[in-house]
């Protein structure tokens, strides 16, 4: 049996969890899911269990911890450790989301087992044979994991390698109790700040107009904002741009920024470093505008314009406006 930790935020299940369930089913069809937190954490047990059942969870274990009013990583991990002990699962899997990686790393630390993050494929055995991401997926690493040390394999699934598919199963709820101390709740979300500005955020944007060093400076981004606005999208940028303070880090795309997959990614004055591509290579259509025809980004683009952004972009904006009127 494989346990899948279902990462949720006040009852909303992290969508990557459905990919993790699909991935886990391929290893062993006997998949159980785990939810931590009761109604005080915003969880509607029957709705959530039904959703997880849709994606193949035979059983949904729920730890309705009192005091778990919001996400508390160590408390969640403690509960998972209890469950591992009582269910005899051969693996504990989660999505490679910030919470998935965090909670599973805690479980691994508590139980002194290996933790393998960002897996592409897992073959349980002795040793376990795993392919995982390094450098945000720019390299694939094959590893052997000692089966004695990893008597329960603890691993997360690299995002978007498996498409979430439904496979309706019972999703039968069983509640369990776990000993969680006040110390385990010392680190817990106590507040949320900074209401959404109303604009389109990077992860949800259908169009991203992105600029790199080639935009020349903060003023260069004005035209990118205009084009983004005309297409109902938002602005992105490279790390060079955020490091120089031209744009806020929330707009950075890449390995250490946001990973995006919009319908259109318009890369302007961006060279296409592997760490930048790690964040945008899943875009449906990638267009690059660059003075250098040999820039790496040109090999990853669907369409290119070889030219100076200062000349090309105003023309593009004009053409959009003409086409609209």
């Amino acid at each position: 049996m494989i346990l899948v930790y279902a990462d949720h935020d006040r009852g909303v299940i992290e969508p990557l969890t459905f990919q993790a369930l699909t991935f886990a089913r391929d290893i062993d069809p006997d998949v159980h899911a785990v939810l931590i937190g009761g109604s005080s954490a915003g969880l509607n047990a029957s709705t959530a269990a039904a959703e997880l059942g849709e994606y193949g969870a035979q059983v949904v274990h729920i730890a309705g911890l009192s005091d778990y009013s919001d996400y508390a990583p160590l408390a969640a991990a403690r509960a998972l450790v209890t469950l591992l002990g009582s269910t005899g699962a051969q693996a504990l899997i989660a999505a490679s989301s910030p919470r998935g990686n965090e909670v599973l790393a805690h479980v691994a630390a508590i139980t002194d087992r290996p933790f393998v993050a960002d897996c592409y494929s897992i073959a349980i055995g002795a040793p376990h044979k795993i392919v995982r991401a390094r450098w945000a997926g720019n390299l694939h690493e094959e590893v052997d994991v000692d089966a004695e040390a990893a008597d329960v394999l603890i691993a997360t699934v690299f995002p978007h390698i498996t498409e979430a598919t439904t496979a309706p199963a019972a999703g039968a709820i069983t509640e369990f109790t776990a000993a969680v101390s006040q110390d385990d709740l010392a680190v817990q979300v106590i507040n949320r700040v900074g209401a959404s500005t109303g604009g389109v955020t990077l992860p949800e944007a259908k169009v991203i107009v992105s600029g790199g060093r080639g935009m020349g400076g903060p003023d260069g981004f004005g035209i990118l904002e205009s084009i983004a606005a005309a297409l109902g999208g938002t602005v992105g940028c490279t790390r060079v741009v955020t490091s120089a303070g031209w744009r806020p880090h929330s707009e950075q795309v890449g390995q250490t920024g946001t990973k995006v997959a919009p319908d259109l990614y318009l890369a302007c004055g961006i060279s296409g470093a592997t760490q930048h591509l790690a964040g945008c290579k899943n875009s449906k259509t990638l267009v690059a505008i660059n003075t250098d025809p040999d820039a790496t980004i040109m090999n990853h683009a669907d369409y290119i314009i070889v030219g100076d952004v200062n000349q090309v972009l105003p023309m593009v904006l004009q053409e959009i406006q003409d086409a609209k009127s």
Partner: protein
Amino acid sequence: MEIAVCVKRVPLVGSTFMLTDDAMAIDTSRIGATLSPHEENAVEAAVRLIEVHGGSITLFSVGSAQAEEQLREQLAIGADRAVLIETEGTEIDSQATAAVLAQAIDQDATDFDLVLLGTESADSGGYQTGIRIAHALGRPVVTNVKGLDITDNKATCERAVGAIREVYEVQLPAVISVLDGLNIPRYPSVPGRIKARKKPVDRLSITIPEPTTIRTSLRVPQSADKGAINLGSGQQGAKALVEVFKQIGVM
């Protein structure tokens, strides 16, 4: 305030990854090295905290002798001393790395109020070293931190979730792992570099635990050279691009 920062030397990879013939490592013969970006932010955060609260910064690194280069760079930015746990050159797995770092921090003469790390290393991306160190030292840990303020021995940490930020509070001593975007790291100044030459980089030898995760090979995934369509230049290119926008349904 006494702060420990764990930093790792990684290859400075540009547009392509070149592997060694045995496909066990990145061929670093023609490229430089750097720190993982998140760790640059961790050092910057430490320097800012010391500016306000006083105290000192100790860097810890597990790696080859060459990691001294990255340690000197961060000493030039404002760290006071460094401890290098030298390995034979091959990278060791996350579990072993964390055990070695925890031991080095624990046995150090300084009692650290705060241990700072990156949330994930640039190369390995294990997402675990900070959490394991926290458990080994019996301290609370907050990860993915993009906003940090410390007053009265209490750290207020912010973590980005979509467009909003979650707030966590934790009493020191604690372990905090941070993300790029926490701050904009400064560059070393010339006087900083001169001072750094005299700062101590101590070598520490610690027995490395048996690995539980063993690399058997590395592979560069095939990147689809999409054979881009050149839309032309100038006005003609701009017109063609707008046609593409219509075709793919974004206009």
